[in-house]
């Protein structure tokens, strides 16, 4: 067997046999995905809860429509006083009663967004009833269309972001810790005294890191596309593979740099954390950049992670084609090349 293959196999075995690194690179990001995915799952279709005081024929009529049932949840209140108490405590969003043709809506301004939604909803409900009462067909109708894929759900920005974070930390920590611990226990020196070339050692490490990144991608896709999370892959999703490879190379070079300038595993871990964690927030991995303040959006252009996150998002969830992958791949490979050059200059075989 060649030096390259045996080194790659040794590194891969070392990785697979280390429960800690498996948890850190695969299980923990997946756990985040499952937790955040479940938390945000229902958030795209908010439901309004309304307590009905006495009989409200208009409301009873309205909830016969399936469309309205999806956004309106009606419960019956024992008395008006009890209903108002429920509204005050936030157990329901509004209480409603009807006297003749008059609908009375009680709401709380404690949550202004919800109260706005409730008022708008009932206003349109009453208008629709009025329109129907005229016996004529409506003069105008409204059709709505979301600019993203109509099925865009939180999982579609959560999965690329968390995947990018998982790949970034896996590659960075893997390279930094391997380098420092091999130097510390003098395995690097020992390797220097074998005829194996530096190229073979580097190629083995790159192969293992890329393999790990692709496994992370596969695991994420498997979980995110289950019916429960419902990620819908768009046509060019597989363009995520070259982006993930470019991203893994970038973070491998960051890890190499961190491992070259630190002397102990603790220092390498701390430095890698210092780079990766802020970048996860500033590069849009944890919080979608669209929701982030303007300054974070500006800063994100300086974060290598941004290009991995947005690149994967564009081809996997936004339905963009290969042209959307070109810029992220070019930026990621460019950063990787520069950092590798710096790391090679700072690289030491030995502690002294």
């Amino acid at each position, binding site marked *: 067997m*060649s030096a390259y*293959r045996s080194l790659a196999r*040794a*590194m891969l075995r*070392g990785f697979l046999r280390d429960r800690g690194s498996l948890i850190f690179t695969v299980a923990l990001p997946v756990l985040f995905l499952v937790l955040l995915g479940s938390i945000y799952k229902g958030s795209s279709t908010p439901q309004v809860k309304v307590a009905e005081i006495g009989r409200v024929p208009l409301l009873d009529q309205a909830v016969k429509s399936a469309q309205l049932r999806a956004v309106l949840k009606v419960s019956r209140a024992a008395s008006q006083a009890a209903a108002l108490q429920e509204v005050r405590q936030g157990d329901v969003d509004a209480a409603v009663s009807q006297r003749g043709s008059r609908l009375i809506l009680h709401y709380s301004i404690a949550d202004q967004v919800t109260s706005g939604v409730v008022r708008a909803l009932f206003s349109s409900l009453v208008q629709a009833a009025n329109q129907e009462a005229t016996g004529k067909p409506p003069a105008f109708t409204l059709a709505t269309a979301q600019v993203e894929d109509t099925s865009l759900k939180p999982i579609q920005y959560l999965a690329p972001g968390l995947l990018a974070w998982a790949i970034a930390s896996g590659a960075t920590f893997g390279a930094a810790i391997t380098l420092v611990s091999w130097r510390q226990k*003098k*395995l690097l020196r*020992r390797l220097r005294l*074998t*005829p194996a070339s530096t190229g073979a050692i580097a190629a083995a490490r790159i192969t293992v890191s890329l393999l790990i990144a692709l496994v992370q991608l596969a695991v994420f896709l498997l979980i995110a596309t289950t019916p429960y999370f419902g990620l819908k892959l768009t046509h060019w999703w597989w363009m995520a593979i070259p982006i993930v490879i470019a991203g893994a190379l970038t973070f491998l070079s960051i890890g190499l740099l961190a491992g070259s300038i630190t002397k102990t595993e603790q220092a390498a871990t701390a430095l890698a954390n210092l780079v990766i964690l802020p970048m996860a927030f500033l590069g849009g991995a944890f919080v979608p950049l669209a929701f982030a303040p303007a300054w974070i959006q500006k800063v994100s252009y300086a974060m290598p992670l941004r290009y991995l996150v947005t690149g994967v998002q564009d081809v996997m969830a936004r339905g963009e084609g290969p042209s959307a992958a070109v810029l992220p791949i070019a930026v990621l490979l460019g950063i990787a090349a520069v950092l590798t050059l710096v790391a090679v200059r700072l690289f030491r075989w030995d502690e002294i």
Partner: protein
Amino acid sequence: MPVPDTIIVRDLQKVYGSLRAVDGVSFEVAAGEFFGILGPNGAGKTTTLEIVEGLREADGGEVSVLGLQPWPRNPRLLPRIGVQLQASSFFERLTAREQIGTFAALYGVGDKRADEMLELVGLTGQAGTRTEKLSGGQAQRLSIACALVHDPEVLFLDEPTGALDPQARRNLWDTLRAISAEGRTVVLTTHHMDEAELLCERVAIMDHGKILLTGPPAALIRELDYPSRITVSSGRVSADEARGALPEMEVTDDGVTLAITARDPGPALAWLSGRGALAGLAVRGGTLEDVFLKLTGREYRA
């Protein structure tokens, strides 16, 4: 044609700041020889060995190993030398057999010899054990097996028994004797005088970056002309009787042990034997520690 020396070192120099770590070291090692570099910690042994292996560049002097220059990194020399480093340098979470197999592949040889190597160093039973679970002595023997997997002509060992308990040290000595018996050239550094005396055909005694003396341990001790010290249990014969019978010798008796110090122990042993007073007999000659003491004027402290 005379067989060239396997290792030739001439006037080696290495300076770290103001410290002359290696200060004009010269020695030769013949093919098949078991050679030791002996000295206290900080004497410059490891630095010397690392320059000879090709891990460090010398500031001055010449090194030739098997007729080749070890520095800069020489891929033609590397397959012909085996190196065991001070720390146990292994890949994480591989078993003993996998470690040997990986090193074999690094040298471009198959792992057919892996089992043979495990047997040579007495680790057949630990073939499937991860290196993290091996004892200090087992790990040290495995690192020697890894150094031998490509059948090198020269083996370098840096403090192989450094942190081992006495039993593990003795086991390792047996392994090293077996390796030397295969005809390999072995170069070892050690700060254990007894180890150098027992294993090495020739030793170089090193201190403060310089080699003080080179030669076979027995010859170095003999040259020292150190008197023998004969001790037996007190009681059989009195110190005065001994002094009367052996006028040239120094005799002491502390009530437990009767000690006779003599250049030539023969007559004293004959007399003690004739008096049936050999109970508890021990004869101690000079050791390399005495050689070191004489050379440096100070007590040897490893």
